[in-house]
């Protein structure tokens, strides 16, 4: 499923950005990475741009760019009348969604806890 297909209130988790290059890289830089979660806050009229809440911040994007983001729909949609507040529970924000998670990142997190992630 693509992010562009979603409507207001729907929650999603990013599977991947379809490809790199300028736009893909920009989306990844802004936080559209595997495992990132967010929801669609609202959309402009006639299939216009969408407002997306991604982790701690909001962004607006055209459907055209949203087509690059492959997502999976998450249950418990946020009711349209009451978009999520900007706060979250105490959460562990490491992207450790077991199956989805790229191997490289898991060993990175292991490395971090053993305190040998840096190469000065």
């Amino acid at each position, binding site marked *: 499923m693509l992010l562009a297909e979603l409507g207001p209130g729907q929650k999603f988790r990013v599977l991947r950005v379809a490809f790199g290059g300028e736009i893909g890289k920009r989306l990844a830089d802004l936080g559209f990475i595997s495992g990132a979660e967010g929801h669609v806050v609202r959309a402009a009229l006639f299939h216009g741009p969408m407002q997306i809440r991604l982790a701690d911040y909001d962004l*607006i994007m055209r459907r055209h760019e949203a087509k690059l983001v492959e997502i999976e729909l998450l249950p418990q949609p946020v009711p349209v009348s009451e978009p999520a507040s*900007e706060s979250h529970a105490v959460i562990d924000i490491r992207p450790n969604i077991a199956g989805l998670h790229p191997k*490289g990142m898991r060993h990175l997190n292991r490395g971090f806890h053993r305190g040998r992630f840096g190469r000065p």
Partner: protein
Amino acid sequence: MEEKRALTIALAGNPNSGKTSIFNAITGAHHKVGNYPGVTVEKREGTIEYHGWRIHVVDLPGTYSLTAYSLDEVVARDFVLNEKPDIIVDVLDSSNLERNLYLLLQLIELGLPVAAALNMADEAAAKGILIDDKTLSKTLGVLMIPTVGSRGQGVTELLDAVIETFETHKMPRMPSYGEDIEAHIAALVRLLEQDETFAATYSPRWIAIKIIEKDPDAMRRIEQHAKAAEIHTALEAAWHWITLHYGKDAEIILSEQRYGYIHGAVAEAVHRKRLRGISLTEQLDRFVMHPLVGLPLFFFIIWAIFKLTFALGEYPVAWLEQLFGSLEGLVQNSVPAGAVRDLLINGIIHGVGGVLSFVPLIVILFFCISILEDTGYIARAAFLTDHFLHAIGLHGQSFMPLMLGFGCSVPAIMATRTLKSPKERIATILAVPFISCGGKLPIYVLLAGAFFERNASTVVMAMYASGVVLSILSTFFLRRTVLKGQSMPFVMELPPYRMPTLKGVLWHVWEKTWSYARKAGTIILAVSVLMWLITSYPKARGIQEYEIHARQSIAAEHPSLSEAAISARAEVLVRQYQLEHSIAGQFGKIFEPVIAPIGFDWKIGVALIPGLAAKELVVSTLGVLYGAPVDENSESPSLRQSLREAPDWSPRIALALMVFILVMPPCFASLATIRAEAGDKWLAFQVVYSLVLAWVISFLVSISGLVLKA
């Protein structure tokens, strides 16, 4: 007294991170605005004295990343790579830490000392985000100081941290991309280090990471490396391995690894409290961004700004006119008549007056715009209008400049600065002049009033409407030809609403006004003097004899006239005679064959020349040429009368002339602004394009007028 030690800071950070407020808090009033060499990106810098240090601060453009895809990002990283500041200070939005840390990691990779400001600490606390800055500092190897830039809190601590970092040669800890990718990076670094001059210029690790990210600029740079071929082989291997292993492009994987590293660092240092309730931003956005309420509200805001700018601006403009009027009177009385007085009055006083008459408009307009920008409304307006504007090839942020074009093109063109994408910005700049500005109205009123008496207001409205249609069509055409290309990806942050600070807004206004005066003002002044020169030189030969002759024949024809009335009439004739024999008059005659097909004679040609300086001048020049007393009043019945009675005029010609003036290049003030904002190339394009278009369209209007009559 010990000697001051010098230190250069490059200030980096995300857009909306409060970087400018930190910059203002550090430098106070001691800063200047210029451009980065060769590009239109603004560069702010300032120097302060602090505890025996002379600290020079350079504000880098606000960016989310350091790719080679956007001009701002290239400027920021080139500055660091080429100028090698002593230390980079990254301003982070604490309420949105992870995405802000993403830039910090890339700044660390540039290989210079780094310190960071955890800015908007108050906003983060309000959002229930608690940051343990000590732990975060230790993890990243970067001193992190909580600040609130808008209130100047934490700025001295930040400067202390900067000096400490510099004095102790504290280097940040390089982020890791995981064992396997690190092995590939290490292999590339070993190769890169083999060319010593290359390794001395660029940090090998930074180049290695950037080429794995397929950064076009870094790829170009390694072509100069002695072992370019071997590097390519190693690079192919790295790409191949990453794609095989992760199933995605390498540039995406590196972004994900950075975020992975950030998540790890943040997990230990950041705690969140659950907050109930809906934020104020969300409550406001339910109205402001509502599909049905949002657009009318947006139109209202634009209308209010328009009214405020041009209605409120009238007063200072009138005061300026009065001031320059009395100055003119002063010169008139104290300087003996002759070329010097003419130059002072008609060249310099009118020129400076022309430049200054735009200043009140620019001040009021940018006061409003910077409030909209600082509150975060601009992004919301883009959200609301983008869909329609994108269809014609513009951008959500093009709307405001186009609306402002109805008032005056100069501030409208300057307002396009809020647009970040170059092609859409140029397209907007080129679309603005077709919108009829206030200066074109007197011409429409004069000509429509003279030739379309009963339908005058309909004709004027039609001119305005044609301008809008033409501007849409022209943009549609240009975006598919000269300005062809994918529009910039429309992905922008929607910052929460923030209260603008008066100081920040005033700084912004001052910067814009100064840049107008510096870049456009000087040209406008020069052109005014030039215009005066070509309309009053060379002095017509035998002008004294002509005057005497004119007086005699007037007196003979109308024996009842008083001496004063005869002088007034004679003066009109003398002016006409002088203009006809001036350079401008000669130009009008030379170009007559060019405009003859439209049905214009040389007199119209002459009137159009000062029209380049300011559209209002067309009316007064026509006044001179058709012998009406010159009071620059378009309502003047005598000018209408004499135009109507002139043998070579007809409603068809009047309409064609109105169309020509609508389409022809805008006044010199606008052209100077186009040059300042878009460069010489686009200035030349605008002039040629609109001249050709003006000719073609008014020719068509004129021809169809003939056909319809037949």
